[in-house]
């Protein structure tokens, strides 16, 4: 299957490990990622300033994606996935908004059809590829390792617009981690937010949200922490040391994107998965 990819802002400008690992793992499952030109921000940070301008940005990216004439679009960032899904839902159900956006897009020569299925890494792998197919491709099962998974917020809520997993009891990411031979755990902080949206306005609170979750998870004695969103990843990986200072403790938890974990199980070289860019990763603990 060919899938257009909307990378958003955080991934192609800084969270390179996610982009690298995505580009590495999907071809193993006969999924070809197709880039397209001219994408802009999804509108996430614009929403607080002007909701309809944010909606225009999301719709614009959907319109660009349909120009590839592919029917499937991968959106690996949780926030972008929320913004694009919401725009699609709103435009489909709100005639006034649809007309307004069509007018705006026309100025750039774009047309909005809405004929694109929006995927995230979690459902593309879990629902389309399937855990059996993943299990069959695994060359080096990650036996004996136990991970806490963090699906994030905006990928599972609000369910009324169609999200990738249950809003209150998500378990697809667990199933994906188990498919590569590792274990996961059910833990009470699983739905806690990473705090990224507050990082630049309320830094202490944001870091403290990330820190308290990691502290709890570390207390459960896991070998690592798995996420699928560039924002969450910044909080738990790059900002882990700062987060530790807000919760009065030492944090030493390997944080990986799921696609990196999958890549390890497929025996893809660590450097190709961008694992050298993970600030918190401790390869010696992974017996690689």
């Amino acid at each position: 299957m060919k899938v257009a990819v909307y990378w958003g802002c955080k991934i192609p400008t800084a969270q390179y490990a996610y982009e690298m690992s995505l580009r590495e793992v999907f071809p193993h499952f006969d999924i070809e990622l197709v880039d397209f030109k001219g994408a802009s921000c999804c509108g996430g940070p614009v929403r607080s300033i002007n909701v309809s301008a944010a909606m225009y940005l999301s719709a614009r990216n959907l319109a660009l994606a349909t120009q590839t004439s592919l029917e499937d679009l991968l959106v690996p960032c949780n926030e972008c996935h929320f913004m694009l899904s919401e725009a699609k839902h709103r435009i489909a159900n709100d005639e006034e908004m649809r007309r307004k956006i069509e007018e705006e897009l026309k100025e750039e020569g774009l047309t909005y059809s809405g004929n694109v299925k929006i995927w995230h890494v979690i459902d593309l792998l879990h629902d389309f590829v399937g855990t059996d197919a993943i299990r069959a491709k695994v060359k080096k099962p990650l036996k004996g390792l136990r991970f806490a998974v963090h699906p994030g917020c905006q990928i599972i809520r609000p369910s009324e617009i169609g999200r990738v997993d249950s809003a209150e009891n998500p378990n697809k990411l667990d199933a994906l981690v188990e498919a590569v031979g590792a274990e996961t755990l059910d833990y009470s902080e699983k739905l806690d937010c990473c705090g990224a949206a507050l990082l630049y306005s309320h830094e202490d609170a944001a870091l403290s949200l990330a820190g308290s979750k990691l502290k709890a998870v570390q207390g459960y004695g896991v070998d690592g922490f798995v996420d699928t969103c560039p924002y969450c990843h910044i909080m738990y990986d790059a900002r882990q040391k700062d987060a530790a200072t807000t919760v009065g403790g030492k944090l030493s938890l390997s944080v990986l994107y799921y696609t990196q974990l999958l890549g390890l199980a497929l025996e893809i070289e660590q450097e190709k998965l961008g694992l050298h860019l993970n600030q918190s990763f401790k390869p010696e603990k992974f017996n690689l």
Partner: protein
Amino acid sequence: MSLIDLMTMAKPNKELHKKILDRLWRVNPDECFQCMRCTSGCTSLKLLELKPHEITLLVNSGFVDEIVSSDIIWACASCLKCKERCPQKASPYDTIIALRNLAVEREVKIPEVYMKAVAQILETGLSQQVQTVASRDMQPFNREKLGLPEMQYADDRFKAVFMKVLGG
């Protein structure tokens, strides 16, 4: 000063309440019966004392001026739990976003990060500039060095349209 203090000093303005309702789609704060399910699960309750049910009550009571100029509307972490869990589809999240939009229109103080993102979008289409990052052992890496394809930015036509959309 708490939100309640703000209320005791002000007169409610029901027209402004309507102004917030007009900005919402399939969300109606008027349906809120103060069950506080939003607040009990709010990510920003413990650290920043955000109480979504109070925001909804203030809006419904017409204290929009007071809440728009309060910093509390910028404390939401956008975790969407209140939107998901509200039994009345009153979604405090959407109300908070509508209040932020109104705060921007009125040029009340807003966190700089949002304006920076908009300025950056007007420059490259993206909310952040492409960065050189450091590996765990402090080596610098950029897209090229990591073997990632070149960026394909939006052109000037986009910028002109976005500017117009923002203004309108």
